[in-house]
């Protein structure tokens, strides 16, 4: 599950990370009120930031023609105007795809005087099965580009899961980033707080880009998380109801949300051949083999180990709600699952949804003979496949892809 910038900052702030003064707003009037408050408190410059689950907002363009999803503002009126230009509009960035995302909230924040930008992230290092802190002096840019062109500028520190982030590790990273004197202590403390946020929330990624040295109010340099991004480990959400409540359904594909309600694992893709499979590995392999024979998969769909008749019908409905779908491939290896149970589910689903598109079904495994018989005697036009290759070729041919 992903979070918005303002939510990531809330969680980081709870764990002691300094963030700019800010408030999230849903109307231009609310944005103005926040700006008035912050200006009155002595801030000199505001920034209005579109809240969407995608990066590249600053360089993005709204479908209305308005340029930029992140705008600096010198007055409360300016803040209100920019908020009005963004709220309710669709922002297209390099990461959103051409459809863009609807902006429902903007973050109005004090825009600090930035002296230097760094990159900081905490994530799982799969090679060691340990948490890793990644930092770089190259902040405010695409870290993947830094990794590609100047990998030596990325510092990686492995964290012992039983000891957590240790103070000396904070000093080590700070020194590598060139943070000395008073800033070294501040950096070490902030690094630990960011790590603690990751650990405590069951995050998969916490990214602060940029982490900035700014001029504090007292004239002393301060380290502040100017932007933040967080993804949570879905497996951990059951123990964080407060974070689960931060879920923004508006940022998720409607069909994927619907699938989740039926305990189906569904991911929409761009092609025309839908698939329905039991098992994630087999489902990925089914998408792959469709493409291998010249078709384009329309989705990933894992019905899991249970696949009741209701789930199969729900799966068909979801598949058919995608207008690009021109054919369906069902690939089931019945292990514990009974092929005849699936076959009965398919026949019922086809009848209930009034399916007219080509349907290829490949069944294998437990009670397969009875399953094939059920399909053959249904009176429905169902094309049978023997092997996965056979089934994939048949569906590609039927769709005429």
């Amino acid at each position, binding site marked *: 599950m992903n979070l918005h910038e303002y939510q990531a900052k809330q969680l980081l702030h709870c764990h002691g990370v300094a963030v700019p003064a800010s408030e999230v707003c849903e109307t231009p009037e609310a944005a103005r009120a926040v700006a008035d408050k912050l200006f009155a408190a002595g801030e000199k410059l505001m920034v209005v930031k579109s809240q969407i689950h995608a990066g590249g907002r600053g360089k993005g363009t709204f479908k209305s023609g308005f340029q930029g999803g992140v705008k600096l503002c010198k007055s409360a009126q300016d803040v209100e105007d920019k908020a009005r230009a963004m709220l309710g509009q669709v922002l297209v960035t390099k990461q959103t795809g051409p459809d863009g995302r609807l902006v429902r909230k903007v973050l109005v924040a004090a825009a600090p005087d930035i002296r230097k930008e760094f990159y900081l992230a905490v994530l799982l290092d799969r090679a060691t099965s340990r948490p890793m802190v990644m930092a770089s002096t190259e902040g405010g840019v695409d870290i993947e580009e830094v990794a590609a062109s100047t990998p030596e500028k990325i510092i990686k520190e492995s964290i012992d899961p039983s000891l957590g982030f240790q103070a000396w590790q904070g000093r080590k990273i700070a020194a590598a980033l060139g943070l000395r004197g008073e800033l070294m202590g501040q950096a070490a403390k902030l690094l630990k707080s960011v790590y603690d946020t990751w650990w405590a929330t069951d995050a998969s990624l916490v990214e602060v880009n940029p982490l900035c040295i700014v001029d504090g109010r007292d004239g002393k340099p301060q380290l502040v998380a100017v932007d933040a991004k967080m993804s949570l480990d879905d497996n951990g959400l059951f123990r964080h109801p407060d974070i689960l409540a931060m879920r923004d359904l508006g940022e998720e594909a409607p069909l994927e949300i619907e699938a989740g309600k039926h305990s189906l694992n569904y991911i929409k893709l761009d092609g025309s051949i839908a698939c329905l499979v039991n098992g994630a590995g087999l489902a990925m392999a089914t998408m792959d083999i469709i493409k291998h024979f010249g078709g384009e998969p329309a989705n990933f769909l894992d019905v899991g180990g249970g696949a009741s008749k209701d789930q199969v019908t729900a799966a068909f409905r979801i598949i058919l709600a995608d207008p690009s779908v021109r054919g369906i491939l069902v690939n089931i290896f019945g*292990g514990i699952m009974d092929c005849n149970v699936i076959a009965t589910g398919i026949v019922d689903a086809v009848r209930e949804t009034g399916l007219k598109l080509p349907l290829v079904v490949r069944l294998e495994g437990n009670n397969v003979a009875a399953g094939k018989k059920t399909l053959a005697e249904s009176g429905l036009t169902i094309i049978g496949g023997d092997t996965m290759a056979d089934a994939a070729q048949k569906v590609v041919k039927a769709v005429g892809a």
Partner: protein
Amino acid sequence: MAILVTPQTKVLIQGITGSFGARHAQLSLSYGTQVVAGVTPGKGGQTFRHETHEVPIFDTIAEAVKATGATASAVFVPPPFAADAILEGVGAGLELVVAITEGIPVVDMVRARHAMQGSKTRLIGPNCPGVVTPGEGPDSRGGCRIGISPGYIHRKGNIGVVSRSGTLTYEAVWQLTCRGVGQSTCVGIGGDPVNGTSHLDVIKMFMADPETHGIIMIGEIGGSAEEEAAAWIKEHGTKPVAGFIAGATAPPGRRMGHAGAIISGGKGTAEAKITAFREAGIGIATTPSDMADTLLKMM
């Protein structure tokens, strides 16, 4: 010999009284597995019955081990308690813990793996279908089945199968069995990003096992376990290996069902893994229908 388990391995089942654990305890018993105990805290003293089998249930693994001599466990415990269940097995000195549970928080597994360092216990999984060493009876009965794999698709023989997936593994196994080619042991290492045993760990065991003559390795997007295994095979492999990588068509950044099946920051692509396989001389099945034939051509 096979690897990890033999038909004589004594198995206990954690979570045997839950519906999922009970169902698979029944199937394992029918297959001929030596299920000697169940462990469900609070239900110690009860008996799990199936056909003519009577399996005693204990409150703790330590008590189960003392009473029955069990050396391996299958973990059918819900996600919030599964890491603890795994560590109980480690603490009791089991040789093998096979964690079936899907949905364990990553941080719990990070902690568990770290805690296990230096222990003698081997962990397989989590989020895996388990381990099967086929037997000599009809439908390969008489073997050892720990987990949820269908027993009947197996056949006793000399091919080792190691995979992150469940049903995709069954495809490969069934292809082999249908061609009259049996398996020494089939190991599902699971689809999570943090697990107890890697492809390479299992491949080293297969390479050292006199009963294994060829290996099928099934991988998928995410992480670099397949590349690590391929690099070792290139230098040290002594038996033919064929492989298949699922997820060539997966979009980046999305979790494809398995928690570990995700392309992150450009890393973990199917393309990179297939390239690593090619460089190591691993036979590459271009479609999942060719997994068995690809290996058999090499043998």
